[in-house]
């Protein structure tokens, strides 16, 4: 089991024929992901990486069974690509693109409210259910199937945490990034609810960072009753207020969105929050062994 994506998920790639799209799609195919087709406007009718290319998402879904679309188009066109996928009825859209203007994302969120599509990202490494499917840009080999759900706002820091889990012999049910931008689709709360409902997930690792209130909302959910052990790490205790730390969403004021505040709320809700990012795997191992 896993959340959102699994072995039988059929995948469409928007921006398949570009440099990024080609590189990462090849890596997804090598992992075993069922990539069915690609979309690049103007290249309809071609084949790329052995898959058919369509001009539009609407044409692709008429011809192929598609569950998820992953987007590798440049920032200026990415918001449009998300809405095109949602309009075509695709249930889950994963947007890898970094640098989409925040107002474009505000329009996307308003558009998605009227449609059933879920969005992961943007500015995310994507989602992987180890041993089943990889719909993203994360390095596949560091993952292994297992009982730990991982949800994060970050990329390489997630790989670091996953690698620690794997080295401790703890595999992952699903690992996903919700994205480093101020406005994203799926939230920590959404992911926690799905992990709660997934019988194979025995514990969840949540990796947050300064800025916004996604971790605060997660803490509120945990406080209301989340039955699985939650191990957290929040990056940015040493970050200064008012400065953007790489991610467009990683900016806090002196009063709001600080790491200290997020850690305190998560801990008082019952989560185990580690201060040392090198000890995430160790903490999960000790929590899980304490329960069994």
């Amino acid at each position: 089991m896993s959340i959102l994506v699994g072995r039988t998920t059929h995948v469409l790639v928007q921006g398949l024929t570009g440099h990024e799209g080609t590189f990462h799609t090849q890596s997804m195919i090598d992992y075993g992901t069922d990539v069915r087709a690609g979309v690049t406007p103007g290249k309809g009718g071609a084949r790329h990486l052995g898959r058919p290319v369509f001009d539009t998402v609407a044409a692709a879904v008429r011809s192929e069974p598609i569950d998820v679309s992953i987007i590798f188009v440049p920032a200026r066109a990415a918001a449009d690509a998300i809405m095109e996928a949602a309009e075509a009825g695709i249930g889950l859209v994963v947007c890898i693109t970094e640098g989409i203007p925040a107002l474009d994302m505000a329009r996307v969120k308003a558009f998605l409210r009227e449609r059933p599509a879920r969005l992961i990202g943007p500015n995310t490494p994507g989602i992987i259910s180890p041993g089943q499917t990889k719909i993203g840009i994360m390095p596949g080999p560091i993952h292994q199937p297992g009982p730990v759900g991982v949800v994060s706002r970050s990329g390489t820091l997630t790989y670091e945490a996953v690698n620690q889990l794997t080295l401790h012999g703890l595999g992952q049910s699903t690992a996903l990034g919700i994205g480093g931008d101020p406005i994203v689709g799926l939230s920590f709360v959404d992911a926690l609810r799905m992990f709660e409902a997934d019988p194979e997930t025995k514990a969840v690792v949540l990796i947050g960072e300064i800025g916004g209130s996604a971790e605060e909302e997660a803490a509120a959910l945990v406080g209301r009753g989340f039955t699985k052990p939650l191990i957290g790490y929040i990056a940015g205790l040493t970050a200064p207020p008012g400065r953007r730390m790489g991610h467009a969403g990683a900016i806090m004021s002196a009063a709001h969105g600080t790491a200290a505040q997020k850690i305190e709320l998560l801990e008082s809700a019952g989560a185990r929050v580690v201060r040392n990012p090198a000890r995430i795997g160790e903490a999960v191992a000790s929590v899980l062994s304490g329960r069994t």
Partner: protein
Amino acid sequence: MRIHEYQAKRLLAGFGVPVPRGEVVETPAEARAAAESLGGTVILKAQIHAGGRGKAGGILRVEGPAAAAAAASRLLGRPLITPQTGPQGRIVRRLLVEEPVAIARELYVGVVLSREAARPVLLTSPRGGVDIETLALTEPDLILRQPVSPSAGLLGFQARNAAFGLGLSGAAFDRAGALFAGLVRTFMETDASLVEINPLAVTTAGELVAADAKMDFDDNGLFRHPDIKALLDPDEEPSEELEAARAGLSFVRLDGDVGCMVNGAGLAMATMDLIALAGGRPANFLDVGGGVSEDSVRQAFLILAADPGVRSALVNIFGGIVRCDLVARGIVRAARERGVRIPVVIRMEGTNVELGREILADSGLPFVSEPDMERAAREAVRLAKAPGGPR
């Protein structure tokens, strides 16, 4: 990206928001001429990217052209120190010379992007002239928040809600609708992340005037606005941050002495935190990004090595898409070019890590290779504190 008050006022005026008559000057002679054309008594306002200018002596009311020239010569070319500038202050290079506004009441009006609502929000408060974040903590009920539809913009009833909430009546009420609409359009049509008029003055004549203005922009939206990108004042940005941005890197200067270079923003913050946990102080945030090239690694390393405050450096790379061998080559190239003044601890993990470590070892350069992230941070902190200082 942030701009100056005078630039924000010009943008707002273009969207129909009333601002005081004024001129931007760079010399005392220009200040004298501006005071003459504005009618004698004027306000001089130091143009720096920091708040708290009034109390710091950066906003002066002067009587007549001669006094304007004298005050301008005291302000221009000198640092102005406010609670937001840090102890070194900011050099004042320009003054905004404005006609005085006869203020009866001071209000607050602003538009910010709300992450929670995923849309812009119009904020209004009858308590103008104070910091809105402070007000939000002390008297949140005095702030009216209205989400704005990203497609429909500000609606008529929302403008009325705001105007009634501010206690406006008569001519001021009538003018407020256009002002709020102009404010929201300024935000939406320039991809701003903040537009703030604080205070919005109600004059003794019942007019509304933007007595101050502040604007920040979404960096991701700037590609649509070359005119706004051109408003960037390089004197207001730390030079190494601009240099890093040109190389596609994300750099923020901090006040510690352990430099770091990391791939990925989250891991970069985590690395800073690890340095602090080991008893040290990070000198910077530096994310080389996901699509990094050998040359951008080289430039990142040069920026780190050039900082005189850095006593040791920690490189932390988790290779995914970024290959460790490419990072190692970039570091070796930079070190051969400029020499290695400081001890450098390198932690690499992931794609092609063996090849990367080999390249570092074969270089003959005095790097400390440490595969464990926590031990690497401790070692970098120990080296920064070691007596004798950098080589």
